[in-house]
């Protein structure tokens, strides 16, 4: 399918926004301005961008511990996201969640998640609700190669298949589960092969090619909307950073790291845009600069936002 200029430029803007957000997060964490654990999406920007471009506001996603890219791509507000990383009252979760739990239910974002694999049952349930309400919406579960070894992967894909739910399982195979390389935690090369076990389609794409990701996701999501059930989409990519900030990633072979850095999805789309004459280098640099300014503004917003009142610890446990 042909993607038009607006679409491709929107991909570009989204990817450089994620890149800018995560690059700043590196500095802010190092500077001690972000507490707790931070898992960055650097290098994987094309996946969330391509997938979420197929989704409406009314569709759902379930994210992971490495969730910033998913949230930005689903329309998350950068100020509220950054403020949450800072633990401020203006954050998405009023400072109660942090990076691992950012959510915006109104945007269909059912949360980052600190439990590997926990998003799959949640997305399965959201998809069930879409089918039950017959509202034409779908749900997407993002999860990693490591998560594909968990209980919840098996039970979710099997149930989604049996119930023919409008859900797409997007496996972000970045080659690593913390220090454990994919070949050391599972004996499949293409995780999409696991779809066989559930009688659903499985497809693997280059996760650093935003257009390939979009096309695969679009087909799977359209299939889901048609009522033909779930699909497993594997996007192969690479985790640029350590597992979380603070992990130097010493277990990575520098050669592999180099190779993958060279496959940076952003210059790749950039070349494409220039070739198609959809934009000049100067115009693209302007988009990038604008994104960086947005992030600076978000940091300012977060930094100037109030700290929570200690009494707040007691609220929001139960709805009444």
């Amino acid at each position, binding site marked *: 399918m042909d993607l038009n200029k607006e679409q491709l430029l929107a991909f570009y803007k989204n990817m450089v926004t994620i890149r800018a957000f995560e690059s700043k997060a590196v500095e802010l964490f190092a500077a001690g301005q972000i507490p707790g654990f931070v898992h960055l999406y650097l290098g994987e920007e094309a996946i969330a961008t391509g997938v979420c471009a197929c989704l409406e506001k009314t569709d759902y996603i379930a994210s992971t511990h490495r969730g910033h890219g998913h949230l930005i791509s689903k329309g998350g507000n950068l100020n509220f996201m950054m403020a949450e990383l800072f633990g401020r009252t203006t954050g*998405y979760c009023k400072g109660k969640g942090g990076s691992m739990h950012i959510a*915006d239910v109104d945007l269909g974002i059912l949360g980052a998640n600190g439990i590997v694999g*926990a998003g799959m049952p949640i997305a399965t349930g959201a998809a069930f609700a879409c089918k039950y309400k017959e509202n034409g919406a779908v749900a997407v579960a993002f999860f990693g190669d490591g998560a594909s070894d968990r209980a919840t992967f098996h*039970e*979710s894909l099997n149930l989604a298949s049996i119930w023919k739910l409008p859900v797409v399982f997007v496996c972000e195979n970045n080659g690593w589960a913390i220090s454990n390389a994919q070949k050391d935690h599972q004996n499949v090369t293409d995780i999409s092969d696991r779809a066989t076990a559930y009688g659903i389609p499985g497809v693997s794409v280059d996760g650093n090619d935003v257009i390939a990701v979009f096309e695969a996701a679009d087909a799977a999501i359209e299939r889901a909307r048609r009522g033909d059930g779930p699909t497993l989409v594997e996007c192969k990519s690479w985790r640029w950073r350590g597992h979380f900030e603070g992990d130097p990633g010493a277990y990575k072979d520098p050669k592999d790291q180099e190779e993958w850095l060279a496959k940076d999805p952003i210059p790749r789309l950039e070349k494409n845009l220039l070739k198609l004459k959809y934009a000049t280098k100067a115009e693209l640099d302007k988009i990038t600069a604008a994104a960086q300014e947005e992030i600076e503004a978000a940091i300012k917003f977060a930094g100037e936002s109030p700290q929570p009142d200690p009494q707040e610890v007691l609220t929001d*446990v139960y*709805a009444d």
Partner: protein
Amino acid sequence: MKQMTYAEAIRDGMRVEMQRDPNVYLAGEDVAQFGGCFGVTAGLYDEFGPKRVMNTPISEAVIVGHAVGAAAAGLRPIAEIMFVDFMGCCMDELFNQAAKMRYMFGGKARVPMVVRTPCGAGMGAAAQHSQCIESWFTHIPGVKTVMPGTPADAKGLMIAAIRDDNPVMYIEHKQLLPVPGDVPEGEYAVPLGKADIKRVGSDITIVTWSWMLQKCLAAAEELAKRGINVEIVDPRTLVPLDKDAILKSVGKTGKLLIVHEEVKTSGFGGEIAALVAEEGFDYLDAPIARLTPPDTPIPFSPILEGAYLPSEEKIIKAVEAFF
């Protein structure tokens, strides 16, 4: 009022809410045509059809986990786990997902879901099909825990649990399923967090729930003949807990016996004893006592299971030991 069994009352509660609210649905293993392992859901499939009463694979994690997503997306799932003993297969989905979603999201999510599951010994089902583990659930902020001990409470608490906007563990007792009783018809809700004085007395307070309530009521009749007038407080919901009702009764009697079917160590009786030792200490004119099974798994042999379980006789002994 209508005579029905505890099982029928649970079903009636589900039916009333499913008729009232199209967003309520039921999912679990063999809950559809088969009517559930204990027949509790019999007829619901015929009445509400395959869209609202669904069989699942043997996949507890996604039975509870999908309910979290469905609830966050606006439905009101009733997820059945065939035996409470199987909750170990889906604890993460309950305690890290369902229970914490609202808080982690800064109060911006609602997770109205009920996990319905039977507990309890007495049928020779052995160590993995006879347990009571309610104190686990009471240790999870964000979850409410309901344990009806009569048919009327079974219906009223079911309706309240379904209407509640939070995850609720609704734990029914296998031994109570055939027990009959008078049950109000129609939309009868019992508020969560309100204890019920099942027997008014003046000499000693027994706090108990679920199946043990019935045993305590029987023991109390016998004790009355022997001149001991027992007050029985049934909290009905362990979280939220009606502390005032417990403290008020102990303030009246000065003596507290807690009877439950969980093993003793870290059973919910410990929490109730602690509550009274903290906030009702001056009421007490005797040490608190707990009557529970021993700290062992549940044995298969009916003789051993009988030795394991609190009985009317043991309750009578435990009460008489106060005097």
